[in-house]
């Protein structure tokens, strides 16, 4: 395809807001100071002042609105189409949650407000903590971590504090070779060494390898269950027994919690620490890469070390209702992980989601997520994908599954990346590609419970069509996409000679 056949969107070249700036234009009308004014240099010594204001854009409001509306049309989003990005749980984001988060009592509440004048917010946090504790099967919750990776960091710091408290020094953290990249990155940040554990032929932890690697230097085993292949590890009870017998803690990466809500609980599986991605299972919008929140639920033995402050509830002794407070006096705590109390706005949305679904609704969400994944897996297997893109571990999956594009690459010369890029022309966000690392040419598909059978069918049909077309003309997919605002981008250049800001 050549420039001659550009789509209108492609013809519209990217221009930044700085390039639309004209000296003297503006949007904001600020109030006057309204107080007796003095030269700035009398208030602040001249050597501490800047000589020129920063070169921000100069542009009027209508053009700002147009600029960002134009940009928005250059994004694909969940509200526009199917987004089966494995491990990311792209489920519908109810707009009610946005509405309640924006109530002034939430949105304009200062985080340092005296707890006696923020009782509604603290009660909401308390209620959310209780709900997450019940869903995870672990009694204590800290809402403080800001994301899943932050929860991992918290869990490893808690592990370190737990062992230090017992006078033990441990150096290793075990993680399967299928783990999320955040797991080993968090391990290093907390000063441990990562030891990889192999995967068996059913997609679970290789027990002999695990036994060989468990010793008294192991601080923790980090697991996702169902794992990143979308498979439930049936040996989890035995795994937990092994780790606990060696004195380690068991950490649950909650990225895949959406598969088991109301069906199985990490605490009952033997996990000590769990993080929950509120932006995955609990419907916080992903925002193009955040915000999220990664609360942790922990067992009794970990509780004394939880970050401070903690929300506490006090029963009234004079017949009034309970009151809520922030407890800063936690001498064995690992300390703060961030400012204030956490991403409260995310808590509001997730609590609204839990209230909306209720006990049955959450369980049903997981059931439908698992049903949808298995249906899409079966639909794909029945077509060309069955041969070209076989499922990596052929058993029933939970909420997601992983295909291998190895035969497709060998037989048609089509890499998984090419398939992904061609899907863009069909109006789909591609699945996660090249993860987990264990599977060659991996394609990881998570449809979630909020998709209809029609959406799943349409996606399966698109994959079928792309494979059929590749049998005729493999080059078509190799040069895809054609219809997107820009086509394949030179990522190597962006890393070798990075241009990370506009020169003005």
């Amino acid at each position, binding site marked *: 395809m050549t420039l001659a056949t550009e789509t209108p969107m492609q013809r519209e070249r990217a221009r930044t807001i700085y390039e639309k700036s004209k000296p003297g234009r503006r949007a904001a009308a600020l109030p006057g100071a309204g107080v007796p004014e003095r030269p700035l240099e009398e208030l602040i010594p001249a050597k501490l002042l800047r000589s020129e204001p920063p070169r921000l854009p100069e542009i009027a409001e209508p053009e700002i609105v147009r600029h960002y509306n134009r940009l*928005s049309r250059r994004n694909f989003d969940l509200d526009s189409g199917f987004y089966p990005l494995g491990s990311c749980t792209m489920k519908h984001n109810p707009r009610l949650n946005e509405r309640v988060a924006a109530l002034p009592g939430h949105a304009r509440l200062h985080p340092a407000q005296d707890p006696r004048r923020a009782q509604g917010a603290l009660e909401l946090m308390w209620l959310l903590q209780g709900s997450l504790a019940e869903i995870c099967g672990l009694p204590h919750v800290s809402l403080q971590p800001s994301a899943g990776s932050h929860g991992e960091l918290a869990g490893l710091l808690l592990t370190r504090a737990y062992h230090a408290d017992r006078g033990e020094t441990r150096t290793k953290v075990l993680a399967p070779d299928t783990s*999320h990249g955040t797991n080993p990155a968090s391990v290093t940040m907390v000063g441990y060494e990562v030891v990889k554990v192999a995967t068996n032929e059913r997609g679970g932890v290789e027990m002999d390898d695990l036994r060989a690697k468990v010793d008294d230097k192991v601080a923790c085993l980090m697991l996702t269950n169902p794992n990143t292949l979308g498979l439930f590890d049936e040996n989890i009870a035995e795994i937990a027994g092994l780790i606990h017998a060696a004195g380690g803690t068991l950490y649950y990466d909650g990225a895949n919690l959406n598969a088991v809500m109301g069906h*199985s609980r990490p605490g009952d599986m033997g996990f000590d620490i769990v993080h929950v991605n509120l932006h995955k299972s609990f419907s916080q919008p992903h925002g193009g890469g955040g915000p999220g929140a990664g609360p942790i639920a922990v067992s009794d033995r970990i509780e004394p070390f939880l970050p401070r402050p903690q929300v506490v509830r006090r029963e009234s002794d004079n017949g009034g209702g309970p009151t809520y407070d922030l407890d800063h006096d936690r001498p064995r705590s690992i300390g703060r992980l961030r400012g204030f109390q956490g991403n409260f706005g995310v808590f509001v949305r997730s609590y609204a989601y839990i209230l909306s679904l209720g006990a049955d609704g959450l369980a049903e969400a997981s059931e439908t997520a698992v049903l949808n994944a298995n249906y899409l897996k079966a639909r794909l297997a029945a077509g060309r994908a069955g041969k070209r893109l076989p499922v990596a571990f052929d058993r029933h999956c939970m909420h997601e599954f992983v295909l291998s594009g190895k035969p497709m690459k060998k037989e048609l010369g089509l890499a998984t990346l090419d398939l992904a890029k061609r899907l863009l022309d069909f109006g789909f966000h591609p699945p996660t590609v090249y993860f987990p690392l264990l599977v060659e040419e991996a394609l990881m598909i998570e449809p979630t419970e909020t998709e209809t059978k029609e959406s799943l069918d349409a996606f399966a049909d698109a994959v079928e069509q792309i494979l059929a077309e590749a049998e005729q003309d493999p080059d078509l997919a190799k040069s895809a996409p054609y219809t997107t605002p820009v086509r394949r981008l030179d990522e190597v250049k962006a890393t070798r000679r990075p241009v990370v800001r506009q020169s003005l």
Partner: protein
Amino acid sequence: MLDAIGVDSVAELFEQIPAPLRLDRPLALPDGLGEAEVYERLSALASRNADAEEQVCFVGAGMYDHYVPAIVDAITQRSEFLTPYTPYQPEISQGGLQVMFEFQTAMSELTGLPVSNAGLYEGPSSVASAGYLAMGATKRRRFVASRGLHPHSRETLATYSQGYGAELVEVGLEGGLTDAAALAAAVDDETAAVFLQSPNFLGAVEDVEALGLAAREHGALLVVACDPMTLGILKPPGECGADIALGEGQPLGNRLDFGGPSFGFFCATGEQIRRMPGRIAGETEDVDGRRGFVLALQTREQHIRREKATNNICTAQALNALGAMVHLAWLGRQGFRELGELLAQRTAYARERLAAVEGVELLHEAPVVREFAVRLAAPVSSVLDRCAERGIAAGYPLAREYPEHEDGLLVAITERRSRAQIDELAEALAAAIAAERGALRSDGGQKTPQPGGVG
């Protein structure tokens, strides 16, 4: 669907979970509610909070009650920005990637440093991430931090330090400012980074350039936390010798939200670009030569580099950074400077007005932009309660985090705080202090015990 899968029931799919691990009862949570009921429930909770709509808010301490223009909400609530994931597929994520690029440019301009990332979780954890970067860059494990650094930042840095094995040394304040002699004495050849904040937690503008020399002399990185809203008038950290400038982004286009979500910004010298934490957008071209944007330098990141990554961050705060960018565009170059001046003028007025109140004196006389500290001649907590009864959140009590300033109160000004409101604050403080002193006198001069701690 079940036929296609080849099972009789959904329950069959859950049989891969061993029976003893299957929950044999419903979750002990209430039944689901309809949309209107959920709204009522959440609305009732919200009504039990004294928010800045209900109280006149002079509380700052890192998060401020600025006016967020309506276009910020209109743009950040668009589905196309609200509901996508991280832009792993750049061809269909040009909007979000270009916003990151524009945001990086703006933050680079504000801080005077050439490289910015696309945002981190929030302020204090960004400070801790700078510590991790400094350890990697210097191969040293010792931090020196001013007591003027936000207490939450110091505590977060200490928490992270337990993990990556660093020692944290604190340098005190003199007259509201970092004790320069003590700082110079504390920095040595094992120091990885020196952490300053300007304006510092007590609102005082530090002479970063002079203080930073100690870091330079010993080959330590200079990390400066700053309040973005002061950077329209204050000399940017990049011109004061900072290697890293970072901070809490909430004042730019983000709501108070009881503490989050907001974002942290993180800028550095070009030398540190390959050690940066978080996402960075970069400019490039597509196969037809069209300009485009991608996630650059991904080889730093956890999804590629795993245990060798420069940081573990994955989900950051793209939507919050978008809010900041729209707010900055709305303010514009002139508006941003005017806002900084407005804050300085009103704060100067408020500081003078409050200092004239009987029972109030300045805690320090160092220059300030938008926040200042006073001492009260009556128990702070009781004074705050009395002001709250008049609909005023009078400030942030210093006692918990600065026990040496048990009588200290931090007062913050934004463009939303009018002269009339400042006058009202002065009157409320005067009345509250007089009443408390009266209560003390009638108590026979005994100091009344302060009621329980404040959040």
